[in-house]
């Protein structure tokens, strides 16, 4: 009878996960520790942006700016030797253009690799993916000479135009999503009289809107931080994106730490905000490529 009563209480009682409270506490403590290690440099940059040089290097360390030097922000946007706002605009233009170019060209290529059947398709796709293994420094010199002969050195063309021809990583990433679009949708559109270009534009792209946004975000983050390309092709400070502008400012004004930190803060901030707003999309993008 006692056993029966005990059995009944087991039935009525809500079951909980077997993990103990101390396991949970330990897990969160370790994770919090790692998060602090990663966040510390960013925090250091953020507080240094609102200090002067003496406060930055003060001993003991000031963990919070006192006073908050907002004048550093005003100085950043008003300097002649560091056209921050202009370069910020250049970065937006550069990253936005690359993102649009990547979405256009890579989705076309991915449609072809993922949705169309043609002879040697897998071979060509394999060769495309092989391009991922080729370091960019190997191809940099002939490409640089080509752009110079075209007279486009010193413009954004060499930095943006190659993406109009696709990028192996984004093609690979998008193809994974395109493979998930039901083949019957395309067959139905073919029977309805749509051309392949129309099927790509009107039928398939609406099914992969989220992956396209993901690819666009990846392209924006990559381009925002891109340094080597602009360093090679751009010579005019007014045309620099922020990544290069900040570097040249640091090289010329090594002692002005607070302005450098303020510049670095507002260079990193847009990407941080973008990531926080879209981190689920980033996770989906990474999981689609097998990176996560």
């Amino acid at each position, binding site marked *: 009878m006692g056993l029966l009563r005990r059995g009944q209480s087991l039935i009525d009682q809500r079951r909980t996960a077997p993990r103990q409270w101390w396991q949970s506490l330990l897990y969160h403590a370790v994770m919090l520790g790692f998060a602090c290690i990663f966040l510390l440099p960013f925090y250091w940059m953020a507080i240094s942006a609102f200090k002067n040089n003496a406060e930055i290097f003060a001993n003991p360390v000031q963990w919070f700016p006192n006073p908050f030097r907002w004048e550093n922000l005003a100085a950043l946007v008003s300097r002649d030797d560091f056209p921050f706002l202009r370069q910020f605009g250049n970065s937006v233009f550069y990253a936005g253009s690359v993102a649009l170019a990547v979405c256009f060209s890579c989705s076309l290529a991915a449609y072809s690799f993922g949705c169309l059947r043609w002879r040697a398709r897998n071979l060509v796709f394999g060769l495309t993916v092989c391009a991922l293994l080729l370091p960019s420094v190997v191809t940099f010199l002939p490409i640089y000479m080509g752009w110079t002969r075209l007279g486009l050195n010193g413009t954004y063309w060499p930095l943006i135009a190659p993406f109009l021809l696709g990028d192996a990583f984004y093609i690979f990433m998008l193809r994974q999503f395109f493979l998930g679009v*039901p083949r*019957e*949708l395309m*067959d*139905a*559109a*073919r*029977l*309805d*009289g*749509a051309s392949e270009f129309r099927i790509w534009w009107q*039928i398939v792209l*609406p*099914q992969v809107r989220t992956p396209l946004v993901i690819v666009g975000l990846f392209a924006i983050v990559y381009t925002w931080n891109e340094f080597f390309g602009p360093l090679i092709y751009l010579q005019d400070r007014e045309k620099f994106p922020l990544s290069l502008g900040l570097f040249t400012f640091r090289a010329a004004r090594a002692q002005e730490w607070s302005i450098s930190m303020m510049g670095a803060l507002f260079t990193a901030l847009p990407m941080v905000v973008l990531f926080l707003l879209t981190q689920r999309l980033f996770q989906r993008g990474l999981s689609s490529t097998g990176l996560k």
Partner: protein
Amino acid sequence: MGAVQLTGVRKLFGAMEVIKGIDLTVQDGELVVFVGPSGCGKSTLLRMIAGLEDVDYGVVSIAGVDVTELAPARRGVAMVFQNYALYPHMSAYDNLAYGLRRTGLGRAEVEARVQETAALLQITELLPRRPKAMSGGQRQRVAIGRAIARKPEVFLFDEPLSNLDAALRVEMRSQIARLHHELKATMIFVTHDQVEAMTLADRIVVLNAGRVEQIGTPREVYHSPANLFVAGFIGSPAMNLLPARVGADGRLILASGAALDWPPGGLAEGQNLTLALRPDRLALGSGDQADATGKVTLAEHLGDETILHLRLGDGPGLTMKLPGDVPVRVGDAVPVSFDLSGACLFGADGLAVRTRQP
């Protein structure tokens, strides 16, 4: 509407030949059902007619025109897919109108055609909805509407009812039959469901491993199977296929030793044959009138009928379909009598030798 003619049609995927030379004519206004086991090539053949798969050898003609090299949209065919293939980001109206707009019809005519089709299929209230806001049956009706709106020469159905539940399947089946009657359209319907094939078809094409095994009306295919494959495939439960030998007295001797009367003529003594008998042609015998005794290995009580699976000694298995609820259990020994009306005999090559009319 137009007739469809296939002449020596073959298809290869790499080195593997999946359609092995098919000659077939579907008459104008006829509803032909392709039926066969999974992987037999029935959907591939349909897609070849639609132009969605290339034809490696042979000719496909629709309404007397060679369309083998034509793009799908220029063949005058419309197709209904198993998974509906409705454009998910468009309303039902736009799904119906999409193909019409591609043909260059004016807005007023597109509107008129869509409304006319919607009225025919009673889906007018669904027109503003997107596919995700519809049930499976509603989606399938919209998919059929998309095909009808284009007024094609030929309708192609690729297992359109497979994704529906049993009740909806029956409803949609009768709706397709009604549409065929009203539109008097040429229709080719692919299914692996024999009930769909038997109830819808004017003629059935039984396919196996890329070949046509038999073409005939449902009655012909059911009562006079051309070979052992058709005999074993058409009908549920399948026909009993029993090895037999022609005895000295002209009777058929089964492996179990049972001797059965068969009308004389055409059979040689000692000839090895296969006797094919529908499960409903077997009955429980009584006393001396039983032809054999079998041991029940499985009893399926379906309420209005009972299906018994038996074993005759060491011989082959046997399936009986008996009316009503028969109180038999696994392990029981039951007397069996054979009614050979409607039975078929097949030679060693698997082809039909004789058929007794039911």
